[in-house]
């Protein structure tokens, strides 16, 4: 397939996504300044993700990509701004309300963050913990219904064959797919992925990106993905946001992002 055709299709997907009503994740005026730092890491960042859309954030090391994602899911408290998920501002919530709302957004990390000594299936079923309660679950038991749903999620990422294997015996690519299955078992409306392919070989990286693409297209999830590989972003994203020195430098359909704009993101800030 030609690059032009890929870009045209990507542009169409972006246009379609934009016509689907309210965004599933809406970041508005997000700023973050760490104590003692000379300037903000994030400065007035605004970005939206619609259902069925895969948005990739590109930027140089230290430009604030991961901080933005961590603020978006409230692993870090933003200094100012709002993060609206399915109509609620996460930045304004706390306690049970925050916990309930977090279930709508699944997060995937660079290293999967699976519990090493548990099976892949148990790890996946843990994604549904937010829906269940009771003393047995609090004591470490996983309900049969969640295990069954976990198997369905493993099937969705084509990993049922590793269900019984311990997480620490999985390869990097397998672990990342199992982490995606855990994210799916949350039954989320959006996925946030923090450099999900950074530690994978090119083949595994492509396979994970294909899966994220498919989850957006087929399952209608809004996917916000921080990446370091422009070629993967151009190939799989509907929209690309460029982050430079904590600010959004551009936010365009992937088909309209030129090589020069990407090069500018990675230029030495001192230059």
């Amino acid at each position, binding site marked *: 397939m030609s690059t032009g055709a890929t870009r045209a299709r990507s542009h169409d997907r972006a246009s379609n996504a934009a016509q689907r009503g309210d965004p599933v994740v809406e970041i508005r005026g997000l700023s973050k300044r760490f104590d003692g730092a000379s300037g903000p890491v994030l400065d007035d960042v605004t970005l939206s993700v619609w259902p069925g859309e895969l948005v990739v954030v590109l930027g140089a090391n230290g430009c604030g990509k991961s901080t933005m994602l961590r603020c978006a899911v409230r692993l870090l408290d933003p200094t100012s701004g709002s993060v609206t998920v399915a109509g609620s501002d996460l930045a304004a919530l706390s306690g049970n309300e925050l*916990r*309930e709302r*977090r279930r709508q957004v699944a997060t995937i990390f660079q290293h999967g963050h*699976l519990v090493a000594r548990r099976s892949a299936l148990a790890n996946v079923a*843990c994604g549904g*913990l937010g829906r269940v*309660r009771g003393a047995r*679950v609090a004591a*470490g038991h*996983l309900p049969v219904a969640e295990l069954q749903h976990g198997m369905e999620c493993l099937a969705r990422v084509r990993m049922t064959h590793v269900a019984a294997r311990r997480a620490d015996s999985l390869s990097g690519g397998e672990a990342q797919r199992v982490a995606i299955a855990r994210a799916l078992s949350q039954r989320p409306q959006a996925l946030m992925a923090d450099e999900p392919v950074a530690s994978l070989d090119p083949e595994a990286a492509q396979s994970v990106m294909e899966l994220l693409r498919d989850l957006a297209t087929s399952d209608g999830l809004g996917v916000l993905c921080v990446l370091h590989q422009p070629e993967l972003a151009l190939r799989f994203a509907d929209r690309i946001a460029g982050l430079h020195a904590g600010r959004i430098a551009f936010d365009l359909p992937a088909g309209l992002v030129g090589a020069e704009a990407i090069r500018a993101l990675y230029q030495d800030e001192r230059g």
Partner: protein
Amino acid sequence: MTVTQEPATAGPPLAELSARHARKRALRLLGALAVAAFVVQGLIVVDARPQDLVTGVTGMADIVARSLPPSFATFSDAMSAALETFDIALIGTLAALVLALPFSICAAENLTPARPVYVVARSVIAVCRVVPDLVWALLFVTAVGLGPFAGVLAVSVHSIGMLGRLFAERFEDMDMGPVHALTLTGARRTQVFSHAAVPTVLPSLVGIALYRLDENVRSSLVLGFVGAGGIGFQILTAIQLFDYPTVAMLLLVMFVLVMAVERVSAALRRRIL
């Protein structure tokens, strides 16, 4: 030839780096001198006289000679006392385990529910640990009388301090990735703890507890000297009666018990870790 000027933000100049290096070397030298001074004052304070050990070796040899051969006349009593010593260690360790776990969660910076809870938990752990088990035994003998129950209480309270601190440090050092991942799924705090934190650190906690059991078997022997039950009390009685052959037999029994516990605990730790 063109010379590119380094930007101002390229890093500290060479002179500053060199001065910083010299300061570090001076600090290291001062540190080494302070350690040497402490060692010298330590040798003076403990009144170290190795020559006395050489001249007094005949007295030690006399006691060893009078201990041989060991007397097995009271062997069955020794066995039941050895079992009592092991039971003091086992029950004391189990009780400590149950109490140390919640204290250690509260005393781990990354898991504690609130700062005041952290301070209280750390203080309780410190008090339990700093007071020696022998002193706890004396206190409990006064409270509950002579016998193994006082030993169990002493072992248990001191072990809460030891296990609490080691467990808390293990929790603080654990990989927080799975904890963050499960927190972001919307799981409750208790669920995150039981489904992410516990499976991550469980082998280490079991290993630490087994090592503590091993230590407590040795401790409960000494606790018998202050009336807290077990084989220690029999050893003390035999020493006071100058019955050295019985002392030798009791020490042999204790040696076998300690070695057996040590081997089994090491094998279990290897299997778990």
